[in-house]
């Protein structure tokens, strides 16, 4: 296990790449802010989780953009990625069509799953993206995708992302062992945002870093501190290269930040460090850093924000205008062949 400090990591990134990382994070944040707005727009008076244009549990990823941007910079659309109940940042960075994503979140026929899945169940053949609402049960799918890539000899890789809470669940262990045993091209990524709902990392995990667990599988393990997109980029780059070259899996734990509640409606009364959360927002921090380095101007920032806003609002508008699914077709898609029993 190694620890990578954020100061060492800019090396090798050119201006375009750094701007792209910034733009990717802005796009994700803009999307999440729009969903936040739409989600709460019509749930009052008296928050009702089932009401409104976007009903149900909503797990937003604000604060965790560095993970998605830094990791997905190394992945093509033909690589695979599996995510969790908190998937939007990764879906966007992986290149999912924003209209299909928003459509699914709004439960419309235009959505990725024609409204059957919802925000925790995004399956996109175009970007080989999937996710699962069951903690840690997304890991194994990545093994299978990596297995298929390995057999086909495509050189593609699969990334499996989950929270630090998931790293205490059985499938984490089974998946790391199997991936290492068969040298599958998988990159395991743990997003350590300090919390699993209301349970602090120290109350769930017997060791300070999941990266130390990599040694138990004979794979490289690294913990990235500082919620720093460039450090993530560097660590992910090594892991992806290793996997593509046939060197097998790696484990990366990234110390990141859950900027908002576990889900919308979470009052976070349990959260001791709540006061200093806003100050840890990674996007203004990265903006400052790039400005200080002279690679980001006022115009670049407004352009990034405007471009993001245009794409996101287009996706949201499109979703809102799309038809809701036909209730008479609720049983469609249970099976490919034939009706259900």
């Amino acid at each position, binding site marked *: 296990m190694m620890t990578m400090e954020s100061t060492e990591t800019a090396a090798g990134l050119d201006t375009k790449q750094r701007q792209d990382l910034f733009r990717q994070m802005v796009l994700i944040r803009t999307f999440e802010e729009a969903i936040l707005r739409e989600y709460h727009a019509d749930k009052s008076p*008296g*928050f*009702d*989780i*089932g*009401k409104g244009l976007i*009903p*149900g*549990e909503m797990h937003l990823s604000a604060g965790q953009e560095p993970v998605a941007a830094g990791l997905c910079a190394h992945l093509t659309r033909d690589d695979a990625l599996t995510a969790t109940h908190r998937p939007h940042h990764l879906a966007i960075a992986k290149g999912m069509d924003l209209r299909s994503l928003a459509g*699914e979140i709004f*439960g*419309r026929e235009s959505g990725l*799953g024609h*409204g*059957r*899945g*919802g*925000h*925790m*169940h995004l399956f996109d053949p175009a970007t080989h993206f999937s996710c*699962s*609402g*069951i*903690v*840690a*049960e997304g890991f194994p799918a990545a093994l299978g995708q990596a297995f298929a890539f390995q057999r086909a000899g495509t050189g593609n890789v699969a990334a499996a992302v989950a929270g630090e*809470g*998931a790293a*205490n*669940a*059985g*499938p984490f262990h089974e998946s790391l062992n199997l991936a290492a045993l068969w040298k599958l091209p998988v990159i395991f990524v743990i997003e350590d945002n300090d919390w*699993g*709902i*209301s*349970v602090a990392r120290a*109350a*769930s*995990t017997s060791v300070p870093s999941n990266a130390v667990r990599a040694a138990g599988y004979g794979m490289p393990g690294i913990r990235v501190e500082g919620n720093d997109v460039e450090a993530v980029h560097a660590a992910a780059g090594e892991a992806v290269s290793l996997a593509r070259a046939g060197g097998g899996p790696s484990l990366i734990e990234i110390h990141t930040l859950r900027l908002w509640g576990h889900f919308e*409606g979470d009052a976070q*009364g*349990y959260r001791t460090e709540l006061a200093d959360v806003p100050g840890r927002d990674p996007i203004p921090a990265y903006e400052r850093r790039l400005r200080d380095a002279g690679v980001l101007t006022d115009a670049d920032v407004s352009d990034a924000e405007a471009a993001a806003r245009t794409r996101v609002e287009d996706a949201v508008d499109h979703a809102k205008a799309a038809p*809701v*699914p*036909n*209730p*008479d*077709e*609720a*049983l469609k898609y*249970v099976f490919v062949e034939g009706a*259900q*029993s």
Partner: protein
Amino acid sequence: MSISTGTTAARRSLPIEPDAGTRRLNTAKALQEAIASQMEQDDSVFVMGEDVAAYGGIFSSTTGLLETFGPQRVIDTPISESAFIGLGIGAAVEGMRPIVELMFADFFGVCMDQIYNHMAKIHYESGGNVRVPMVLMTAVGGGYSDGAQHSQTLWGTFAHLPGMKVVVPSNPYDAKGLMTAAIQSDDPVVYMFHKGVMGLAWMAKNKRSIGAVPEEDYVVPIGKAKVVREGTDVSIVTLSLSVHHSLDVAEKLAGEGISVEVLDLRSLVPLDREAVIATAAKTGRVIVVDEDYQSFGLSGEIAATITEHDPAPLLHFSRVCVPDVPIPYARELEYAVLPTAARIEAAVRTAVTA
């Protein structure tokens, strides 16, 4: 490993379904009260699960317990369901009385081996020498667009597998009485509460999620159904949130002269087969309303219970269940597959004209 008998005596002396009185609580509060009272009286009772301490349970099953009993008895766990449910089993085997929460019943697939091959079978495999006096408490049900992995009821799955009792309260009174009975039972009890009957501030509230609850301890016996509305034309056999939809329909149709009897099963294991047979004999027309998947579950068991007793009195049998489809996310789709009042009403109308 020891057999605790103390609470057996205590249980015998508790009132059985006493008068409800006038104090009104919501289901969540009634449930919390049952747990708190048992924890006060018995040091061996403790609560364990994800987010049961500071958070108070995602669906408020444990609100306030941490403040009263402290972190030694109200314990947050890692996301390691097999380990902590198994921990509950091991503690129960040593004489403790754990209440373990599985946050959503939908997650049973990550820990079912502990539940059905261990919790439920140890007493039998040991030839009665080892008891597992444990409560596995879990939230069920949909209706708020939580998708295919967070909206299931799944009680048919638990009830199918032998060795665990399964209770499913529909209202505050039963919630308290069944939880008290579950904690005091020397058998493992799966306690499944529907999110929609808890009376949560942040979810559409059923009007019957608040009701009269005695302050004293009492039990609702495990294995006893209840006729919650008498009727003569058609029987609805149901449970949990669907009881309320069924009562709404019964009230509405009473105005049209259709008399609907509603049986709240309350327990699935043991199943009160006498009550099922009695209502079927009374009306001859049976509708099972069940938020679980239709096939190979509760609705079939009701048909078999009636017909193996005597098929003759049965003039009509139908079911209003989830039609063997993963619960869809979009509201329009989800409400097309849930057992809504509209579907129940249509079924009753069909039944009386059949």
